[in-house]
């Protein structure tokens, strides 16, 4: 699997926010076997350099985000600052349309994606399952898409699975990452089984009772889902169908 020509083995991208302690965060990162961790920028003065030293030890690739941005200008400036601090062209472009729903603003996201792509950024856009928005993001220069499963932090799983299946079929050769809304390993498996390329998670691991164990569970779930997709699921039937052969059944009637 490749994101912007980078070969990757793990299909789990892991957020770094909301863990009980820095030590648990580091152990969860290792247990997840992720190769990409998401990070952010906030006002200096609350332990920024310590956090950078902490995560640098993990040797993972950074995917900085524009979380909290509501306008094109805010997102572009945040991306520019992130590139300087984290020394990467990768940016998780997240422009929020409403503070309560945290639904992405597709119009601003497309505009910012166009500006950032021209400036040499490799954009990971947080979007919905809308096909036309997806097309516009690709036209703007994105080489992958990150549709939501459900609203950020909600843990509801794949709220519109039929729409996501359509998206998968429509964008056949584009890497698609489910970003946001996954709450349980079973939901991650479901996304992988229908052919999504990867899952971006944070809260489901950070807010579980044991983030290190849960990171291990998600790692294995995503792997299992991927293998199941490659194996191909059986066709669903409306009626029962006996799996044990009827031929040779003993006649035990009186």
């Amino acid at each position: 699997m490749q994101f912007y020509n980078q070969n990757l083995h793990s299909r789990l991208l892991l957020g770094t926010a909301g863990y009980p302690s820095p030590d648990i965060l580091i152990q969860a990162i290792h247990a997840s076997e992720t190769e990409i961790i998401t990070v952010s920028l906030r006002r200096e003065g609350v332990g920024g350099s310590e956090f950078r030293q902490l995560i640098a030890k993990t040797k993972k690739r950074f995917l900085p985000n524009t979380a909290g941005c509501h306008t094109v200008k805010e997102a572009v400036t945040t991306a520019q600052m992130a590139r300087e601090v984290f020394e990467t062209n990768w940016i998780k472009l997240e422009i929020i349309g409403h503070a309560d729903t945290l639904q992405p603003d597709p119009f601003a996201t497309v505009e910012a994606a166009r500006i950032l792509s021209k400036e040499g950024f490799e954009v990971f856009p947080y979007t919905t399952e809308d096909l036309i928005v997806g097309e516009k993001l690709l036209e703007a220069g994105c080489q992958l898409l990150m549709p939501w499963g459900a609203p950020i932090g909600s843990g509801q799983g794949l709220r519109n699975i039929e729409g996501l299946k359509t998206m998968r079929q429509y964008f056949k050769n584009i890497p698609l990452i489910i970003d946001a809304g996954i709450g349980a390993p079973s939901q991650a498996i479901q996304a992988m089984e229908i052919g999504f390329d990867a899952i971006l998670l944070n809260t489901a691991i950070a807010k579980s009772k044991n983030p290190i164990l849960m990171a291990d569970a998600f790692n294995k779930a995503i792997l299992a889902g991927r293998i199941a997709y490659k194996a191909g699921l059986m066709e669903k039937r409306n009626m029962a169908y006996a799996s044990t052969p009827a031929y040779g059944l003993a006649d035990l009637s009186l």
Partner: protein
Amino acid sequence: MKLYLNGEFITTQVKTLADLLKEKNIDVSCVASAIDGNFIPRVRYERTQLQENMKIEVVSPMQGG
């Protein structure tokens, strides 16, 4: 001169962004800055002149999802 640094109204005698960060003991190697919403690359700190009421934001790495 009075200006805003990370949302706080401050008074300073220094003239450039580089000197302001030095005055505030901020390690420039692990921060990025913006003035009035525009990104200021690190290489321009020395020649970025401060002006009255500028809104300066200095950010550093943090946890994120």
